[in-house]
């Protein structure tokens, strides 16, 4: 079972710059935001664990709990696959009254057995939920027994909803991987240019863009953790020569532990924005060279960067005139913002604000430089009421954000572009930036905004 210590350890991450910058006292409090009863909140730890692991495409994801935990989290993140579809199925033990009185362990075991018999997956992930944790079902023991008797790895994910935030759930998912999965398989094809990308979930299938870039450099992506991943690749992730951490708040602990255990160096980077993409490619190349890859990799990397950057700026050029002078508010969550700020400014747009909720100190510094040192433009979060006022007063022409703040913009008659996980376009890599600019242009030029801003024609004073 989970203990407090494990959670505290997770919340005191030495690999996290934010955490290291804190005073001893603050660090003790941990980094999880305290939830405020009565205030609207985001997802729970279960949800965090589920979304972090569900992109593994070829395994059974079995939720041990009442129906709605699976029902509500079933395939809601648009994470793509290039092959297996098994991850899209909703498996659950669907506990009812009597199960809760008598305990659900037997039912769980039967469910595991049935799922293996029917689908023969390389592994089963079993998710703990609030109810089964409360009644004391020991899923770790059931999983151990099932692994031994059935011969298929069955991995317990101990992140019941009540232990904390969604972010904690992400981290607990990382723990499950390091405790049960990574390092359990020795591949016969480990090479000098293998890498992993951590915290990349293949939203809208955008890993395809990244993969093509890497392949052109002869770099093999062993696995993303966990976008479009196969179980056996994740199990062999410890043979990669370098790790790139994309969503650092979610899986930096995993990266640190992989470094400690197998000596895999890691860096934090992003594929959003032109300069960030180039930086990421350079960092991957130099890390691989340090670990023994041929030095000419860097020359090829620079050549690719030069070619792609030129192509991208050229492709974006037609939009410059249309976007120039438009004011944009970035409210981005996971997507690193400074590099996107840079690209938007190059398009002649004015960035009137940017959230740095999930950015590191270094990122914040870079973003601040880009924004001309104006601290007011850097915000942790904006209360919906203030955001609404901002649009009402016409201080921004468009907002890029996730679905949660969408309606604040829309009700304040301001165009909005989805750049979070419910988006349908790929914004990663060089090509993605062109798509972003195109989509922004469309959102801004749609005639409905004119309609939205005008009162009903009979209310206009002549």
């Amino acid at each position, binding site marked *: 079972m989970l203990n407090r210590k494990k959670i505290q350890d997770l919340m005191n991450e030495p690999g996290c710059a934010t955490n290291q910058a804190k005073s001893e006292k603050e660090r003790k409090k941990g980094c999880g935001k305290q939830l405020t009863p009565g205030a609207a909140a985001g997802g729970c730890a279960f949800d965090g664990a589920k979304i972090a692991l569900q992109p593994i495409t070829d395994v059974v994801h079995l939720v041990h709990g009442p129906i709605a935990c699976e029902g509500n989290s079933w395939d809601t993140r648009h994470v793509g696959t290039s092959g297996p579809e098994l991850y899209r199925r909703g498996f659950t033990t669907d506990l009812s009254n009597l199960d809760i009185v008598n305990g659900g362990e037997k039912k769980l075991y039967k469910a595991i057995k049935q799922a293996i018999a029917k689908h023969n997956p390389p592994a089963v992930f079993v998710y703990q939920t609030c109810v089964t944790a409360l009644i004391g079902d020991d899923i770790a023991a059931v999983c151990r027994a099932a692994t031994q008797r059935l011969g298929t790895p069955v991995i317990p994910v101990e992140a019941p909803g009540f232990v904390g935030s969604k972010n904690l759930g992400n981290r607990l998912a990382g723990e499950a991987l390091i405790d049960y999965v990574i390092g359990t398989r020795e591949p016969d094809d480990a090479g000098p240019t293998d890498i992993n990308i951590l915290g990349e979930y293949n939203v*809208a299938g955008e890993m395809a863009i990244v993969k093509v870039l890497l392949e052109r450099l002869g770099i093999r992506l062993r696995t993303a953790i966990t976008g479009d991943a196969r179980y056996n690749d994740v199990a062999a992730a410890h043979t990669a020569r370098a790790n790139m951490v994309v969503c650092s708040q979610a899986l930096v602990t995993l990266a640190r532990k992989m470094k400690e255990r197998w000596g895999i160096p890691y860096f934090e980077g992003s594929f959003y924005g032109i300069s960030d993409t180039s930086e990421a490619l350079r960092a991957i190349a130099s890390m691989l060279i340090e670990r023994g890859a041929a030095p000419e990799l860097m020359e090829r990397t620079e050549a690719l960067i030069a070619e792609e950057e030129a192509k991208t700026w050229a492709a974006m050029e037609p939009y410059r005139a249309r976007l120039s002078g438009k004011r944009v508010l970035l409210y981005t969550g996971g997507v690193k913002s400074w590099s996107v700020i840079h690209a938007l400014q190059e398009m002649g747009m004015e960035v009137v604000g940017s959230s740095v909720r999930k950015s590191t100190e270094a990122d914040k510094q870079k973003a601040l430089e880009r924004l001309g040192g104006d601290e007011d433009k850097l915000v942790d979060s904006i209360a919906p009421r203030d955001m609404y006022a901002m649009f009402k007063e016409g201080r921004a022409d468009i907002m890029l954000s996730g679905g949660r703040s969408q309606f604040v913009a829309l*009700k304040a008659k301001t165009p909005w572009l989805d750049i979070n996980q419910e988006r349908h376009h790929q914004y990663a890599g060089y090509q993605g930036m062109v798509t972003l600019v195109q989509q922004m242009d469309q959102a801004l030029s749609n005639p409905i905004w004119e309609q*939205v801003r005008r009162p009903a024609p009979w209310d206009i004073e002549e």
Partner: protein
Amino acid sequence: MPQSADKVKDHISLFKEPEYLELFAAKKAQFECRPTDEAVAAQAEYTKTWEYREKNFSREIATINPAKACQPLGAVFAAAGFEGSLPYVHGSQGCVAYFRSHLARHYKEAVPIVADSMTEDAAVFGGLNNIVEGLANAYKLYSPKMIVVSTTCMAEVIGDDLSAFIATAKEKESVPLDFPVPFAHTPSFVGSHTTGYDNQMKGILNYFWDREAQLTAKPGTKINIIPGFDGYSVANNREIKRYMAEMGVEATLLGDVSDVFDTPSDGEYRMYDGGTTLDDARDAINAKATIALQEFCSQKTLEYVETKGQQTASFNYPMGIGATDAFLMKVSELTGKAIPASIEKERGRLVDAITDSQAWLHGKKFAVFGDPDFCLSMAAFLMEMGAEPTHVLCTNGGKEWEEKAKALLASSPFGANGQVWAGKDLWHLRSLLFTEPTDFIIGSSYGKYLEKDTGIPLIRLTFPIFDRHHHHRFASFGYQGALRVLVEILDRVFEAADAASDISYDLTR
């Protein structure tokens, strides 16, 4: 035998049985004398080229797959919208069977229309006897409150004079002298069903206002509304009446088919149900103004109404934001009644819905075909949402319509690449769709062949809709109607996105 009493196959699967496949193959090989499959395929490919398109557009005589119907269809539609009214067609009964099936297939309702079944001798000696007998029989058999006479080509070619014939029939006591028998000459070889609607509506008003008795207008505060030929009339007329009630406007819908083509199943057959009362039609002369919802269905009628001293206004099918705005504001201006907050709220909800979905519609290309007024408002609504009406095709659109449509497209950047095709048919549209394809087609059920041929999804939004049920029971007029039209379009957009998706087969869109 592929067919057995234990398991009867329907035609969808029956003809895929080996016996039939063999039979078809043998027939093809031995009797059809057709060119090779390769030659057929090559010719089919050729019909998709620009070269073929040019040949197709230089076609002068033949019309292939027209998107229009003939005058009497519009005439019987207009006639059906009055209380106890029996549409009566002077001419061949075959034509009338077409009108009845056309309307019945669309509305899924019984459509009573009678014909006086002219035969060879009538064609030689004139159709007077048919009218005399026909009116007498119809009056006795079906007890209508009014019989509205229109004509088919046959009667028009031989030059039957309805006015004189009906007068003679009344003298011969086919129907009582004071029994209303309005009429209109509606030859199929002139105009289309929209012209026929106009002629018949004018004929009915003319009967009540001038022929039955010489009425003098005493202008009041009411207004008249003429809906025009509209496949969504059942719900659209009710929506218009709801708007008028909300605004507190006293209005008479002239030719209100909303209950006529939507009778309940409660054990009673209603040959006549609802419709504008004859007294309301008489009193309509005293209205302050008459508004036509479809300009190209009402031009002659409005000219006639103006001679009675009324103000008139006409619209092009009030669907979409701007079109509904214009209609309501005109009503408000004419009646002095304000547009209430409840309607303003509906408007806001529509705008809100469009903002939610605009990204999915922006820049999508549409081909639109249908009646003149529908084409105009559909194109306008598409542009309001950021979509592009690439081809706007109207078989029964003339010069005036063409100019109006061009001006409309020129009014928005989203119409910049749009082309207007007046007087062209669906075979022309096929060439257009192969050479300059769009993302979607908007039109009637007849577009389904284009859909199958070109693979471009069809959105059914105008008369006739034979192969989908009950669309006419939900309004397309007004803000609520626009919302429904938006949803229909979006459904197809999302279906297309899902169908094309492998990696992005998403739960949420």
